[in-house]
């Protein structure tokens, strides 16, 4: 615990030198600092009524808040305690109160798990249980373990670090920033050291995932659907603080989905993927079947299914090519040759 008295009697300059991230804290708290050599105590004793209103807190409350901020940031930077090597989901009940049809599911970092089931079957509840690190205290009564232990409560409440990052179809960029400005902003909030390098890598990876290239100076709000998705995935893979990524469908347009998953898994994330698309579902190592609010089955993707996935990809390519031909005004021709190729492969 940082001593509050010590903070009160330190100059702003000393505090920022020791805890560099407090610079934005002073700014966001709207503390009127005219001279950084002054101590917090001195600054507070000289505030006008209007300046007091701006900062809201008195000296004591401000020092409390500052000390909490420093503690949060130290926790945020101490990555070690938040490595999730293994996530376990212990069985609970379905909507009728019947025990789920499995005992315990272990998911390791770098694994892809597909989640399938009709709409409204309980996919969001499963995800919410994971996000809340449920301990029998949700409607399903499931229990979540991280690295074989009951997880720290911080996963539930901290603003800085959430357990699950989400990527879904209806997400958009809303900030008016260029690609590079946007990546820098995200990197700054993560307080990483090698910012320029990381930002450049995300930019490169995103362009490799995207069907059509985009530039550093492009406005993020003007990117195409595929480009946006590519940037979101590369950014989440490399810069998100969350060890688990939930993907809600990746539309098969303008983005290389297989590469996208490889990138996420390569960053040692756990990938959960809710999908109705057989190609995507078979990219998973396992799939969870959800029905009536509970897990009905857990199926390992078989070798035959992996081969099927290759066939589906050929089929998918045929369809994509046909769509392109259609779009560019070409005449379409029969595809029996391609289909025969699949059969013989």
């Amino acid at each position: 615990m940082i001593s509050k008295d010590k903070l009160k009697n330190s100059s702003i300059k000393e505090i920022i030198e020791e805890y560099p991230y407090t610079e934005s804290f002073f700014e966001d708290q709207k503390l009127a600092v005219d001279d950084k050599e002054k101590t917090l105590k001195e600054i507070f004793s000289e505030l006008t009524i209007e300046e007091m209103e701006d900062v809201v807190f008195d000296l004591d409350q401000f020092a409390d808040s500052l000390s909490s901020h420093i503690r949060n940031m130290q926790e945020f930077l101490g990555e070690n305690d938040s490595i999730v090597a293994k996530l376990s989901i212990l069985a609970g009940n379905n909507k009728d109160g019947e025990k789920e049809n499995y005992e315990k599911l272990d998911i390791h970092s770098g694994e892809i798990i597909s989640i399938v089931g009709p709409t409204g079957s309980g996919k969001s509840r499963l995800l919410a249980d994971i996000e809340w690190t449920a301990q029998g205290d949700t409607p399903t009564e499931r229990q979540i373990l991280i690295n074989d232990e009951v997880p720290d409560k911080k996963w539930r409440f901290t603003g800085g670090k959430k357990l699950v990052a989400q990527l879904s179809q209806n997400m958009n960029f809303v900030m008016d920033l260029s690609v590079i400005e946007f990546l820098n902003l995200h990197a700054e909030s993560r307080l990483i050291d090698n910012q320029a390098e990381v930002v450049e890598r995300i930019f490169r990876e995103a362009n490799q995932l995207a069907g059509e290239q985009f530039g550093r100076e492009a406005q993020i709000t003007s990117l195409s659907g595929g480009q946006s998705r590519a940037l979101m995935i590369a950014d989440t893979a490399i810069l998100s603080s969350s060890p688990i990524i939930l993907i809600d469908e990746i539309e098969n347009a303008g983005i290389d989905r297989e590469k996208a998953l490889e990138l996420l898994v390569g960053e040692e994330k756990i990938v959960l993927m809710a999908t109705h698309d057989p190609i995507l579902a078979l990219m998973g190592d396992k799939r969870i079947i959800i029905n009536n609010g509970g897990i009905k089955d857990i199926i390992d993707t078989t070798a035959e299914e992996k081969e099927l996935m290759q066939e589906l990809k050929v089929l998918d390519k045929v369809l994509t090519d046909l769509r392109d031909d259609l779009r560019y005004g070409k005449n379409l021709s029969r595809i029996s040759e391609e289909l025969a190729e699949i059969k013989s492969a």
Partner: protein
Amino acid sequence: MNLVTFSGPPSSGKTAVILKTIEAIKQQGLKVGVVKFDCLYTDDDELYRKAGVPVKKGLSGSLCPDHYFVSNIEEVVQWGRERDLDLLITESAGLCNRCSPYIKDIKAICVIDNLSGINTPKKIGPMLKTADIVVITKGDIVSQAEREVFASRVSTVNPDAMVMNVNGLTGQGAFEFSTLLYDQDDHIDTVTGKKLRFSMPSAMCSYCLGETRIGEEHQLGNVRKIELGDE
């Protein structure tokens, strides 16, 4: 009875979150009522009524809704007790960025949305800074990175708050949030004698009180002058 105060910028999702949360709380067999404080107009009471929630509204007119809130909260608490509520929720329009309706020892919740821009946390002052729980909404429509940046800004402005994501449309996160609202051991019979968390700027300017004429001689009370400088 438990009392919980909600505040947050206009359209941030307060009503949506409260409604989804009430759904979850009703499962525990608890009786919940809401009082909405606003300035000139609100149809939130209709939404609550439709959901079968006992509701009252109070409009502050030309007054700051938070000042109006403090002058009426005791009566509102008595209204809730007469109706045998287990949980009384107040929803305040966060229209005044210099005030907040939060009371010491009464749970205070700020609802803020991902679309409002990353400078909003720093702009809305006491309503965010002195809240116990900050609920962030509309995470379904912005990117993961924007959500992370926004949440980190919220935490910088209020490092002690619990920060939660709740979706006002789908209700994702509402069950979890609802478990934090009601406490069996809490009993509020009156708020008389309790104190506000943050003293509201008392002196208002002449324009708050209805002055319409422009000019130095009409500027009374709390007047601040713009610094234009020489540049």
